[in-house]
């Protein structure tokens, strides 16, 4: 005897969605959801594992590329020092991460004055931004406060600072390596769980890892250049506002774009702009006028009704033609 579960079987659930002439009735958006399936579990576990293992295998050449990149940019940017490597170890894994030896300096009076000027300008401009620009005003105020705290610290404290430029850059790159390896799992649990096609899931993972592989060394070089030029005074702002947070927002932006892709799956059923169906007739010539017979085949109304409608339509067209002729 069948067990009473209180839940309709999949066959019954699917039958509920079959509409007139075999079409599909899109469920209300309040009722829609995703079913757990084996393919989903594969997307959640196998795909990210493949990506993460591949990334682990590729880490050595990627970080070697970062080192070449730093060396290539060092001279044009006017940065002193040399680029060596340091091994970051996590359990059995280890990877040589570029280690840049250029040192920055404790802020001088001129740097502090410039910093105070920028902090005050940011905060003051932020106070005066209103209307549509209000969020920008809040952002400027927040940045002004962060910079002001840094200013106070460097005014009151004495050298040395807790971090130097090489350690800072090394930390940023270590974070980048960790994110590169972990990001496939973030993609899996936030993107792959949706009803996207396998190709879309692969593309999102590839895009993110390719983007981060390029962004992280670029970000590190930019930070190094700013801190070297503007003294250690610039480090707190870069760390808090334009480091990890910035990398996160790269994923948010990419994710937002990916989530807007059409999947063709169950979640597309409630889309407010449904896909345009394939035209049944070529668009460069008018659709044939339905005959009573053809309409009869697809509608429950009788042939007499169709004939009457046709006759009415023809009468209306003639009347309209006559009116147009008069005018």
């Amino acid at each position, binding site marked *: 005897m069948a067990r009473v579960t209180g839940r309709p079987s999949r066959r019954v659930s699917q039958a509920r969605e079959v509409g007139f002439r075999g079409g599909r009735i899109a469920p209300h958006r*309040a009722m829609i*959801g995703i079913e757990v399936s084996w393919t989903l579990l594969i997307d959640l576990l196998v795909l990210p594992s493949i990506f993460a293992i591949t990334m682990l295998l590729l880490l050595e050449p990627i970080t070697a590329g970062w080192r070449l990149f730093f060396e290539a940019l060092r001279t044009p940017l006017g940065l002193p020092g040399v680029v060596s490597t340091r091994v970051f170890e996590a359990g059995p894994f280890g990877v040589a991460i570029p280690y840049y030896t250029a040192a920055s300096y404790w802020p001088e009076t001129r740097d502090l004055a410039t910093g105070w000027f920028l902090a005050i300008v940011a905060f003051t401009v932020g106070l005066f931004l209103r209307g549509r620009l209000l*969020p920008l005003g809040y952002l400027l105020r927040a940045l002004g406060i962060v910079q002001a705290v840094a200013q106070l610290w460097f005014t009151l404290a004495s050298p040395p600072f807790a971090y130097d430029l090489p350690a800072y850059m090394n930390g940023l790159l270590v974070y980048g390596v960790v994110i590169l390896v972990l990001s496939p799992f973030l993609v899996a649990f936030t993107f792959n769980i949706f009803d996207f096609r396998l190709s879309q899931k692969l593309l999102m993972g590839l895009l993110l890892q390719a983007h981060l592989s390029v962004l992280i060394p670029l970000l590190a070089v930019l930070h190094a250049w700013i801190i070297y030029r503007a003294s250690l005074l610039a480090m707190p702002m870069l760390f808090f506002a334009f480091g990890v947070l910035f990398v996160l927002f790269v994923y948010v932006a990419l994710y937002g774009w990916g989530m807007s892709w059409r999947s063709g799956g169950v979640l597309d059923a409630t889309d407010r702009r449904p896909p345009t169906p394939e035209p049944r007739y070529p668009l460069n010539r008018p659709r044939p006028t339905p005959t009573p017979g053809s309409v009869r085949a697809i509608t429950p109304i009788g042939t007499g009704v169709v004939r009457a409608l046709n006759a009415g339509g023809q009468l209306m067209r003639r009347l309209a033609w006559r009116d147009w002729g008069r005018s």
Partner: protein
Amino acid sequence: MSTAIALANIGMWVCVTVLAIYAVRHYFFTLNRLFGRHRQPFVDVVRADWPSLVVFVPAHNESQVIRDSLDALLTCDYPEEQLTIVPIDDRSKDDTREILLEYAANYPDRIKPLLRDDGIPGKAAALAEAMERYTGEIFLVFDADYIPGVRLLKQLVAPFFDPEVGAVMGRVVPLNVGLSLLTRLLDLERAGGYQVDQQARMNLRLVPQYGGTVGGVRRVALEHVGGWKIDSLAEDTDLTVRLALAGWDVVYQNRSECYEEVPETWEARIRQIQRWAKGHNQALRRYLSAWVLNRSHMPFAKVLDGVLLLGVFAVPLVLVVGWACTMLLFFAGYPPAWGVFTVLAISTFNTVGNFAAFFQVAAASRIDGSRERIRMLPFLFLGFLVSTFAVGRAAVSRASWIRGGPVVWQKTERFRTTRTGSTGGGKS
């Protein structure tokens, strides 16, 4: 100095723990909404012995929007003999009263306005006075800018066929989405809040929140918990907590959608969210201890959800404290070395933890079929930033934590174009 660093260290980890709990909650609710079984009690009932229903529409200077609301209510398919519409004018200085009298003259059996010129001002006081005069079994409340659909009243009343249900809440959908960056962001936030957050709480039998509009309460339940608290800054949260403490269920009906007008200017948005924050914090102060002490009568998950619900507007304060502690530790040189565990913990928290809210909003919009709107996701940061400042300021205000203070009508500005063609925007 070492004491300050030790305190900052403790403070940072406490803040990180609180934020991590909320992040886990975001993920859990989103996954439940995506994969869970959805509870929508009696939502498809169309023929029944419908109970007597009174619909209240509190209004204070609402001449720009109240006609649309009353027109929509008049076309609802609830049996006419069981339905009374009671718009409440509370000391309006514009044409609201004249409009209500005009409608009452045209529909004398259906619209019975209540005109208030004295007594305590405010929505809660207005509702308290109105409910004393009517003896319907069910009371529904709509703000004056809301436009209910034809079937909405039946959908909202249907859950009350379950005698344990004390209150019901429908879904709020922004009407004026495409007007500005702010309205688009609020659309995303509302989607996350209702499509995912409220529905997951409903699925999990936790505490869906009665939101004060597009919802209602059973008269018996309201009397049981002592009626409306007229000194409450957020009468909806206050009532939700009291009902739950008294053992009544609160139901969220995700299919019962009603359009509202969201703020179109950041200034109006800040005032709105500060009002919500003060009211929520007031409820936190009033009921947290009762909620925790009552834990033996409720499942642990419900107790935890209630605490997190009450504390949701204190989170920005936690965030600010967490940032302050982090900055102090950064300047002090903590952590002294990059340990592997520290790197992994910080990396994971910064990415996975901070991403939780974005995930929830994106999932909700995807379910809603608002695919292309998800491209606005990064801009939510601006909304979060403004909310953090605004709610943080409200969280340290006197009204949040200290008793007393005058109760006034604090309502959101209206922006809808009036029928005469002029555009609104004046503060009301």
